[in-house]
Structure formats: structure tokens, C-alpha cells
């Protein structure tokens, strides 16, 4: 038995970890095991890769084929985006969509249907997947794409591993002519100005904002909007170094409203308005990857990330409501991120819908669960939803009312023999069979 948990270190679980030495063994394992969930790097925050039996895909991490001329890459699902970057960037290609860490697997990126700073333009990761090979509950291996087994494809992209175990995937990369980014920062002192800045820069390929969720009154929602474009000039060299590690968790005495406020203040005063810089890809997309285990910065008991999306209608009013709720609660949040989402896609449980998405980390304290409950209720009234990849506490009713396609999802799972075969602590909590 091994103790596992998601990136938030909460909840923890004693699990029987099955770690096949290659992809070749996976369908045997699935045939013989009763119920399990696939797990890659364990970078989902909550319990979506927790289960009594877990299939760890770390050894299924090989490249299969790379068409350098057309930017089409096929690889096993356990490979990390970091390993992919080490190969593709020097050939002039980049990931079409990337989350804020490169330490996720290809399979995990598909199962979470991850989004990046360019969602408003290109959508989610799944929208750039040409096809996947997946082991069903029966042990049978099938291919799914926008053309064949579409229902399985749209259930698997964003399906949190509940439809089967992805063996490999083929993705379409995007061309780049430089491994550098042109980054522009815009500093705004309230949420209205921030949302306006998002609108003004809607054509910007990458955009994301850090907001000071501890600022109150007229400064509510003050923040720094970061815009990015792939640079045209520069070489294609990429410097991916091994990260440093924090040896121990930060003593909780250093994590309180005062320290968080000062960190937020320092960030705010350091940021320069209208500054344009050219920086390498890696620090632009993955600033936190420089520290291997930054999750240890939080309480030993763990932390919860809350990420929601709310529609644009009444968007500003609603973000304000959420920020007031948070700043008036006893929680301290270190990192709050706001971003605009583009159009919703066809994937059944995919998170992004058109609107604003807000993400915050909360140290796990006695009060945190209550705060999250209140936020959850607010999100329902705002017609929003919570990101499954970040979630550890959402209630079944909330899930079922905010992810209306869940019944279709269940019927696809039934059709492909996934029911009872693939389940996680999260899927049980959310009332999926």
C-alpha cells in the first residue's frame, strides 16, 4: 500500500499502486482488475486520481512518431509535456495548448481537457487532439477521434479518466519561429479596468491576469494583466533545467493574512505598467515549474484550489461578489488568477465555457470547507461551474446541475463498458456510477 494524494495534498489515500513497465501490459491489468483509475503525474489538485487501486502510467512515456514537417506528434499517454517540449521546440513546434505546469502527462492533459492562456482563441487541449488510443473496461483497445467513435472521444476529452485508460495520443502542434515570448504587462487598479483590459486585448494570443484578492474597496480586484505573443526572432534553443526542491513544508506561522497581503503588495508594486519584455518560453508558461514541489509552500494538511468559470453576463458584478466573499472570509489566498474563456466545446465534461475563470489557492484550515461551500452556492446562482481537475469537495448536486451533460456522459461510459471499471474518489463523490 502506498499513500497518495493530488497536488493539494488533500485528501490522502492508502492505495494499491499498479505500475506497469510499459503500455503493453495495460490491457491485461484492466481485464483482471475490478475497479481502478489511471494516474499520471498526480497534478490534479484533489481526489480525481485517488482510488483504492490506481494505475500509474509513468513508465508508459515513449514517443511513437514525430512528423517534423507537419508538426504531428504521437506519443504514449504517460509522457510529460515537459519531455515533449524538450524535443519539439528545437524543431520549431510548440504545444497548441498548455496548462501552467509542464509536469502533466499527455493523457492527463486530455482527461482534464486542460486550457491555457490562449483559450479565448484556440480552445482546449482536446480540440487539438487528432486521435487517441484507449483501453476500454473490457480490455479492448480502440481508437477514438472526431471521426471515429466520436461519442467516446468527446467523453474522454475532459472525462477525468472515467471512460478508460488512454494509451497514446496524436496531437497537432503549432509552428513557432522562436523559443522566446514577447510579454507585455498592464497594471490596473480595479476589476472593471481589468475586465476592460481583457476586452481591449482580445486579439492577444496569450492573456492571463494575477489579481490581488486581498485588496478591498475601490481597489477590489486590482491586478496585473500579462499578455504574450510568440516572438518572431531569436533561436529555437530551449533550456529546460531540473527544478529545485523545497525540503520541508513552510511552517504555518508564516502563512497568514499579513504575509499574504505583503506578498500580494510586493507583487503589485514590483509590476510595471505597460512594460514589454522578451523572455524565454519556459518562465513565461511555467514560472512555478522552477520549484519541483511548490505545493509544500502550503500547510502540511494540504490546500484546496478553487477554480470556477462564470458567464460574461453580470461577469464583473459576480467576480466582485466572489472577491468580497473571499476577502471577508478568514481564508488567505496566495495566488489568484483571472482569465477570459472563449467558446465552449463539444466535450461532455470539459470545464471551460465562455466567460471569466477565477482560480485561487486556500490553505486547508477548519474554516476552509465552509468557505468553499459558500462559494459553491454562489457559483450555482451565477450559472457557473467548478473545474473538476482542481476540485476535492464539490457536492454531487452541484456537479449534476452545473455539468448538464453528465447523463450523456454516463450513457457513453455504459456503452463502452466503463461503468464499475473506472472510478475515482471524485467520481464516487459526484455520483457517477
Amino acid at each position: 500500500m502506498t499513500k497518495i494524494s493530488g497536488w493539494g495534498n488533500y485528501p490522502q489515500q492508502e492505495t494499491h499502486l499498479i505500475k506497469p513497465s510499459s503500455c503493453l501490459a495495460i490491457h491485461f491489468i484492466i481485464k483482471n482488475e475490478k475497479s481502478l483509475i489511471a494516474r499520471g503525474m498526480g497534478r490534479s489538485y484533489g481526489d480525481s486520481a485517488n482510488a483504492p487501486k490506481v494505475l500509474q502510467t509513468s513508465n508508459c512515456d515513449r514517443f511513437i512518431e514525430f512528423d517534423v514537417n507537419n508538426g504531428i506528434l504521437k506519443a504514449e499517454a504517460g509522457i510529460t509535456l515537459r519531455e515533449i517540449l524538450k524535443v519539439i521546440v528545437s524543431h520549431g513546434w510548440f504545444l497548441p495548448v498548455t496548462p501552467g505546469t509542464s509536469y502533466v502527462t499527455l493523457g492527463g492533459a486530455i482527461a482534464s481537457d486542460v486550457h491555457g492562456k490562449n483559450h479565448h482563441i484556440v480552445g482546449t487541449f482536446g480540440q487539438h487532439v487528432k486521435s487517441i488510443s484507449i483501453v476500454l473496461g473490457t480490455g479492448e483497445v480502440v481508437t477514438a477521434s472526431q471521426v471515429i467513435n466520436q461519442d467516446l472521444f468527446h467523453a474522454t476529452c475532459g472525462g477525468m479518466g472515467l471512460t478508460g485508460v488512454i494509451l497514446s495520443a496524436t496531437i497537432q502542434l503549432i509552428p513557432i519561429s522562436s523559443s522566446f515570448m514577447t510579454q507585455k504587462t498592464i497594471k490596473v487598479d480595479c476589476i472593471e479596468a481589468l475586465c476592460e483590459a481583457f476586452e481591449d486585448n482580445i486579439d492577444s494570443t496569450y492573456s492571463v491576469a494575477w489579481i490581488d484578492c486581498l485588496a478591498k474597496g475601490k481597489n477590489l480586484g486590482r491586478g496585473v494583466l500579462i499578455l504574450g505573443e510568440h516572438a518572431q526572432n531569436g533561436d529555437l534553443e530551449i533550456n529546460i533545467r531540473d527544478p529545485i526542491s523545497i525540503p520541508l513544508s513552510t511552517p504555518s506561522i508564516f502563512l497568514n493574512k499579513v504575509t499574504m497581503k505583503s506578498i500580494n503588495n510586493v507583487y503589485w508594486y514590483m509590476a510595471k505598467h505597460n512594460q514589454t519584455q522578451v523572455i524565454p518560453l519556459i518562465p513565461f508558461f511555467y514560472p512555478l515549474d522552477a520549484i519541483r514541489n511548490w505545493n509544500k509552500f502550503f500547510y502540511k494538511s494540504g490546500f484546496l484550489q478553487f477554480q470556477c468559470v462564470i458567464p460574461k453576463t453580470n461577469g464583473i458584478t459576480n467576480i466582485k461578489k466572489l472577491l468580497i466573499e473571499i476577502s471577508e472570509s478568514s481564508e488567505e489566498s496566495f495566488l489568484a488568477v483571472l482569465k477570459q474563456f472563449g467558446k465552449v466545446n463539444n466535450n461532455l465534461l470539459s470545464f471551460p465555457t465562455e466567460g471569466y475563470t477565477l482560480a485561487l489557492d486556500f490553505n486547508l484550515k477548519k474554516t476552509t470547507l465552509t468557505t468553499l461551500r459558500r462559494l459553491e452556492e454562489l457559483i450555482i446562482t451565477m450559472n457557473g461551474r467548478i473545474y473538476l481537475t482542481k476540485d476535492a469537495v464539490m457536492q454531487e448536486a452541484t456537479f449534476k446541475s452545473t455539468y448538464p451533460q453528465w447523463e450523456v456522459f454516463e450513457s457513453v461510459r455504459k456503452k463502452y463498458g466503463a461503468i464499475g471499471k473506472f472510478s475515482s474518489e471524485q467520481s464516487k463523490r459526484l455520483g457517477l456510477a
Partner: protein
Amino acid sequence: MKKILIFGATSSIAEHCARIWAARGDKLYLVARNKKKVQTLKDDLKVRGASQITTFCADLNDIEQHGKLISEVSEIMNNIDIVLIAHGTLSNQNMCELNVVETLNEIKSNALSTISLLTLLANRFEAKKNGTICVISSVAGDRGRASNYVYGSAKAMITAFTSGLRQRLYKSNVAIITIKPGYVDTPMTSNFKKGLLWIKPHEVASKIVKAIDRKKSEVYIPVFWWFIMKLIRAIPSGLFKRLKI
């Protein structure tokens, strides 16, 4: 660009070494038993940048075939720069205690087959007067312990053999490197409970590649095992036999 020959290429440590060399654009010659696995490995290394990959399927326990295998390989690749010998099994100590055949088989796959390859390769390298041969031994070879002395004694043989060979070939400008990893989290050790002393195969691999680049002699990975094994070897046998370590 180097020409590198790897025995036991699909073993986890060897595969991660191969990934590093592939990224450098080296030419790789892979020997492994499982055809399907070695093909998967070949595809992967090609994407990672290896300038050329040739594969050979062979069961290295079939010692009589070694001569043929080495000449076959040398025909294709003249002037091998580096050889990595990484094949092996982790013996089941209990099974070995109950069964002589099992014990001898473990000695064969972890020691005799490596020594056979080393003998054949050493003569070729001695003649060409350059190159590096790197062999994966183990800290387990430093002192026999009740829990795994069959595996340990096979590795002890490798350690002693390579130590002698290193002296012999030093004057021929051939480096013999003995790698002694501690606990490595590979499929071979999947049944073990992992603790603080364990490290990942890619970490071991990067240290092996570094040791080869620098033509080291004997390398403990991670280096703290040098100290641990010094202590363990210092314990008098009269006391050691009473200990459960």
C-alpha cells in the same frame, strides 16, 4: 557524435541513458531480448534525436551465442566508443535458497553472461586502444547479506572482474567503469516499499552518462552509498552475522 552499444537496452536504467544519448544525437546499437519492446524503444529514441539506431534481438543468457553476436555487431559498427552493459535480473532470494538451478541461473544472468561479454569486448577494445566499457554492478555486491546474497555475490563477481579488467586495460587507454547503484525505482523493484533512499532511473542514468563522459572508475549512485557501504563493510563478520540488515 558517439557510437554506443547497449546490452539490455530495454532495462529501465539503460533506456534512460539511451534517452540522454539520443538527445545528443549519438548513434545507438541496442541489444535486447524482447522484440516488441526494443522496437518501441527504437521509435522513441528516434524522435528524441538519435542519429542512427540499430537493434539486435538476443537472449544474453545464451552465452554460446555471444561470440557470434559481438562479431555481428562489430561488423555493422566499427569503432564503438562506448559500451553499456545493463542487462540483469533481481533474484528472488527465497526461490534461490530452495532451488540450485534457480541460484545458478541468477548467477548466470547477473554475472557469467556479463563476464563473457566483457571478455570478448575487452580483447577488441585492447586492440583498438580506446573506448569506454561501463557495467552496472550494485551496492549489493559490496557485502553479502542474508536478504539477497545470491544477487549480491553475482554483482560482487562483476565488481571484482571489472576492477581487474580496469587495471589491465588502463595501459591500452580503455576505461572500464563500474556503476554501483543503490535502490532504484524501476519495474525490477516494483514490489518493494519505497523510502528515502530510493531514486528514479532517470536520475541514475544522468549520473551514469556523466561518469562515462568523465571516464570515472567506480561510481556509487547516489554518492552517499559509498559512505553507507564503507560502514557496512567495516562491521566485523562476527557481529555482522547477528545483524538484520
